């Protein structure tokens, strides 16, 4: 009995001291709240364990159509820095509105990217899916390095070297993707998916992009599925003799499957566009997601 009591006392002492240390570590951390899984991944790569990185969107959620919840307001209010994509990727600017309401500093990752302009319903919009080019991803990384360094200038050097290493990894990813796509003849490089997420990717790797869904899956101006767009996709598939088309992980695949059936081509698989894969999947990081996309596209089109 006595031994048991002693054990209880010792356990209590250890717990009390352990909790104290844990609380101290948590209290010292800055908090970054991110909108999408991609920008959260970039931020984690840069801040290491010095910050706590939180993401409003879970893997597989669509940033265009996301509706904010009361918990999101709290996440933003508790943050030291807000990290978002920008250019209306977050449908109706939900992340910027949350940040403004909470009066928090914001890093808009897409700042500095050379925009692709999309035409839709007589309006021009800047394509927000810039991270799907590793070159643009390096601009995102630099913007985040700058943003976190302004909040925590003491560790600027640490953030810069992490950013440099990550950009070197992006360069390697890009060179590898070029080599892989070289296996597909240029005449067969036509990438068809649900919505216009891959324009930067296609411009970089010599593809032509087509989609029935416009620039957004939401109801913004110039976005959405139209009969005209749908028919244009079917015509593209036929005129370029496209071997396969792709669905996206965040979007219901029904429409793309119908188009594939109409045009007589196969659906080669799901691409990661607006969101990375969930924890434990091959696409749980940006580099993993891009790698899986490249492999999927090469296997489908070559």
């Amino acid at each position, binding site marked *: 009995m*006595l031994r048991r009591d002693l054990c209880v006392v010792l356990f209590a002492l250890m717990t009390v001291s352990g909790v104290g240390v844990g609380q101290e570590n948590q209290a010292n951390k800055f908090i970054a709240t991110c909108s999408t899984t991609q920008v959260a991944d970039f931020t984690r790569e840069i801040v290491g364990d010095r910050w706590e990185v939180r993401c409003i969107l879970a893997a597989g959620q669509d940033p265009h159509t996301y509706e904010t919840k009361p918990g999101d307001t709290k996440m933003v209010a508790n943050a030291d820095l807000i990290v978002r994509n920008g250019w209306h990727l977050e449908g109706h600017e939900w992340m910027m509105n949350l940040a403004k309401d909470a009066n928090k500093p914001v890093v808009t990752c897409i700042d500095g990217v050379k925009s692709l302009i999309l035409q839709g319903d007589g309006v021009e919009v800047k394509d927000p899916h810039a991270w799907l080019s590793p070159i643009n991803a390096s601009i995102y990384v630099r913007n985040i390095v700058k943003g976190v360094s302004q909040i925590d200038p003491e560790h600027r050097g640490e953030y810069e070297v992490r950013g440099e290493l990550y950009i070197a990894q992006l360069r390697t990813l890009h060179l590898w993707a070029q080599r892989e796509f070289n296996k597909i003849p240029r005449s067969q490089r036509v990438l068809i998916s649900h919505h216009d997420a891959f324009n930067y990717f296609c411009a*970089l790797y010599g593809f032509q992009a087509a989609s029935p869904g416009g620039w957004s899956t939401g109801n913004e101006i110039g976005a959405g599925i139209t009969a005209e767009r749908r028919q244009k996709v079917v015509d593209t598939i036929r005129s370029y003799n496209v071997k396969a088309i792709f669905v996206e992980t965040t979007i219901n695949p029904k429409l793309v499957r119908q188009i594939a059936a109409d045009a007589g081509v196969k659906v080669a698989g799901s691409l990661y566009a607006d969101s990375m894969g969930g924890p434990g999947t091959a696409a749980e990081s940006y580099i993993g997601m891009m790698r899986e996309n490249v492999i999927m596209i090469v296997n489908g089109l070559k």
Partner: protein
Amino acid sequence: MFNAFPKRPLLVLVMATVVWGSLMLFHEFRASLPTPEAVENIRADAQSEYAIAITLTFDAQGDAFSPLALRVSLDGVNEPLFESNMTVRAGVPVLIAPVAGIKVGVNELLVEVGSGTDFSDESATAFGGGAADAGEATEAPLHQVAHAIRVQVMANEDEIVDQTLWSEPGDTVSGLIVIDVPENTSVRATRVQQAGQ
């Protein structure tokens, strides 16, 4: 009366105090130990006058990921010996002299050169652009050609290093060159530890 006294809780309290007290005493003892004095590894400056010449087989310039064209750094020296974001022309040696900071013992010279591939040239890769389809004989694009740089290090105008670093196609050229300066300050053995990234 003694039997009615609650002995067990008291004993537990005493033991807990002993354990806690011992822990505190141990911490105090550890803190009281003299801190070992750090012995600074002081290395003497090498006596020779050094110069570095770097010659490229290609025009070095930044790419879409980094503007760096050429950077030469010496271990332990915060500022690079040479850094440029401007294009460095092929075949024209870049001379860095005098080189300060070389010590007796092993010195590491890090040379990083941008491969100069303009990845952002969308016109070159756009669908249906000028380049031919796979299978046709074409000249290899710039980013698919391996690059090389020649690094020469001189001590008192005697060449002590003459090494060539190579890169993977399209990648930046980066390599470490070790300059081992013995005690008598005459310079000898050098080797390339790593070429390419």
